[in-house]
């Protein structure tokens, strides 16, 4: 029985983080365009880099237990500057929610139902996300476990079914590209799937065991990274040279499954899985945005803010870009820098300021000695 305040167990946080990263399997087309057949190297390398970056968030959480990043920036920088930083975070989560929703709209519109107007698709999607957020963060985090297992089983199933189509030779030429491409692809993979975990820093106040936050984040990230690696490897080994050409490699790969003419046309499972996973991601992002607004402006309950923000998300995600080409360009070239500002630079400065703050009385004491 809860006492009015919702509580999340550390296991739920761990699985939710993994599920969040799983939802990025649609976005592999960005990496594919840049890294080509060597995307898997980029995934492994950026996993290592992200572990270091996530340490930042964990350290912040340890310095200010039970506070979300918005509250931390207010505590560290004072009311005025803190509020300005919080507004940045609000905008960041909001924009991520918009981008992901438009991704879903693009996917459903292009592959499943071409003639349906985007408004209908997005309306239903956001309705369900807003409803989940209104029900509380506990509800969303509970399903992280279930969806993670579902994601793994779907990917595992497809790997088994596609085994005869995989040719590992396609992975082979390694380190044959110019170095800048590697740097760029590692940058993309670090920022887009992995460091968007910043949204979970908004969830920290609700976690029951504050000491286990670090462990949950790391293990969750590892699970998500494994999934991403398996997906990328599978796609490259099946599609080979066409990997860079297709718009949604994971989806095209599932269309190739054909075992004995009986097990065929399995993309239904993939479509359902993608819908569910991105629903999870957008719910978390929406929750982060709504909670950030509530905490910045000291509103008691975030429930009443859900509907206005959801409506705004629908309106803007109808057409965030002028064309699909611009969306691709954004993903490969601009998004890494844009997101890096919010995900890396801001928390970094917050951390430095927090460390300085915590050291100032110590300096006084050390001076006494």
């Amino acid at each position: 029985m809860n006492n009015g305040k919702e509580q999340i167990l550390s296991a739920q946080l761990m699985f939710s983080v993994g599920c969040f990263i799983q939802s990025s399997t649609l976005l592999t087309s960005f990496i594919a365009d840049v890294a080509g057949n060597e995307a898997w190297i980029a995934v492994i390398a950026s996993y290592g880099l992200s572990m270091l970056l996530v340490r930042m968030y964990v350290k912040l959480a340890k310095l200010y237990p039970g506070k979300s990043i918005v509250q931390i920036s207010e505590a560290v920088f004072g009311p005025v500057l803190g509020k300005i930083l919080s507004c940045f975070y609000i905008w960041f989560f909001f924009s991520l929610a918009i981008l992901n929703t438009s991704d879903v709209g693009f996917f459903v519109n292009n592959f499943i139902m071409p003639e349906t107007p985007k408004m209908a698709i997005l309306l239903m999607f956001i309705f369900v996300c807003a409803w989940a957020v209104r029900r509380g963060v506990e509800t969303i985090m509970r399903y992280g476990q279930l969806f993670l297992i579902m994601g793994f089983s779907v990917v595992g199933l497809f790997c088994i079914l596609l085994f005869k189509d995989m040719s590992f030779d396609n992975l082979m030429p390694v380190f044959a590209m110019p170095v800048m491409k590697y740097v760029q692809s590692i940058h993309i993979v670090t920022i887009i799937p992995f460091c968007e975990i910043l949204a979970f820093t908004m969830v920290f106040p609700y976690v029951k065991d504050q000491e286990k936050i670090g462990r949950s984040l790391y293990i969750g990230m590892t699970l998500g990274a494994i999934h991403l690696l398996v997906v990328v490897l599978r796609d490259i080994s099946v599609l080979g040279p066409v990997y860079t050409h297709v718009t949604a490699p994971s989806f095209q790969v599932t269309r190739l499954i054909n075992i004995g003419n009986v097990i065929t046309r399995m993309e239904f499972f993939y479509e359902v899985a993608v819908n569910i996973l991105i629903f999870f991601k957008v719910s978390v992002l929406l929750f982060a945005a709504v909670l950030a607004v509530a905490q910045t402006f000291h509103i008691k309950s975030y429930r009443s803010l859900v509907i206005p923000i959801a409506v705004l998300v629908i309106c803007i995600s109808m057409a965030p870009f002028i064309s699909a080409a611009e969306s691709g360009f954004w993903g490969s070239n601009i998004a890494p820098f844009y997101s890096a500002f919010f995900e890396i630079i801001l928390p970094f400065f917050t951390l430095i300021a927090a460390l300085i703050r915590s050291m100032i009385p110590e300096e006084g004491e050390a001076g006494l000695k």
Partner: protein
Amino acid sequence: MKNRFRRITGVAVAALILVGLTGCWNSRELNTLAIVMGIGFDQANDLEEVEITAQVVKTKGIKGGKNGGGSSQEEAFINFTEIGTGSFDIIREFTHVSSRKLYFTHNQIIVIGENLARSGIRNTLDMLSRNHEARMNVYMLVAKGSAKDVLNLKPELGEVPAMEIAQLMEAQKNTSHTPDTFFYEVTFSLVSKTAAFVIPTVEIGDSAGRKVLIVSGSAVFKTDKMVGELNEKETRGLLWVTDDIGSGIIEIAVQGVTAELEIIRSNCKITPEIGADGSVKIKLKITEESDFGSQTGSVNLLTMENIQRMEEAQAQEIRKEIEMVLEKTRTLNADIFGFGEALHRKYPHQWESMEAEWNEIFKALDVEIEVETKINSIGRIDQPNYPSKE
């Protein structure tokens, strides 16, 4: 409370109306679809134009359920033909003659006429790569003659020619004289700079006075134009190298008698090597297992020495087939084996300089073939049906 009741009623009414909205957007009832089973591309008289033939199933003619009883006289398919310049445009033009919109997701085969194949297929196939209805694991065939005739031929065993051809393709695994090429494999090769590919050929032939479709041999494509053909043995030689052998029969002669061996499985390893002087050598290592099928003559071939002789003869036969196809492709200058790709994988840096001159390098390529064979099971009898010599 009254307001809430009104709200719920409003929602219920809206839901009921939704039922009537079943004509909305993407929904199409099954009886408004023209299910396309096969597409044929031909070159029209005017070189710029393409003639597309779409084979549509008439569901009333398919024997299934209750409707099949009396309509066995009706044909189960109908072919629509249109001529035009752009593929997508031509397919939409079909709506002028077909009452239902064509539906491509169940398409089984793509047949390309010989003339069109010789002048390049890349542009015609672009639409099929992009359209989300077209699937990538569709069989591709080159018709000797025109694709329209191939698609028009009424099948003997089945009901729809396209399905018949698809099943024919699946049956080719038993002789391995034809590759089965899927659309996505063709796309792979179209994308790479040096690879060439083969597509099986189909022709209308005569058998006991009836016209039947014969699928055997393959057509060689370089970049996207057809440059030559391979006969059955040459095609099998290719399949030895690309590891696509299903099953098949090898005929050998040992000790004055002929024997037939059934191929069970085979594996080929391609190892490229670049020598110190920059010369390129390809090593092929083939391991194969087979079963003893039949023999003529009275000499018992199932003795230890004879089995060894048979294995050597088998290896010789395989080597011969591969050398046949190597020679043919050298004259055609088409790297259908994927040697270029193998070099690229192993020596990525040297490949960058070799890529531009691959045509010349390929002509003078030194290929070393090593074959290892094994004969496994021997059947139910271990001596030929001759009276035993005392």
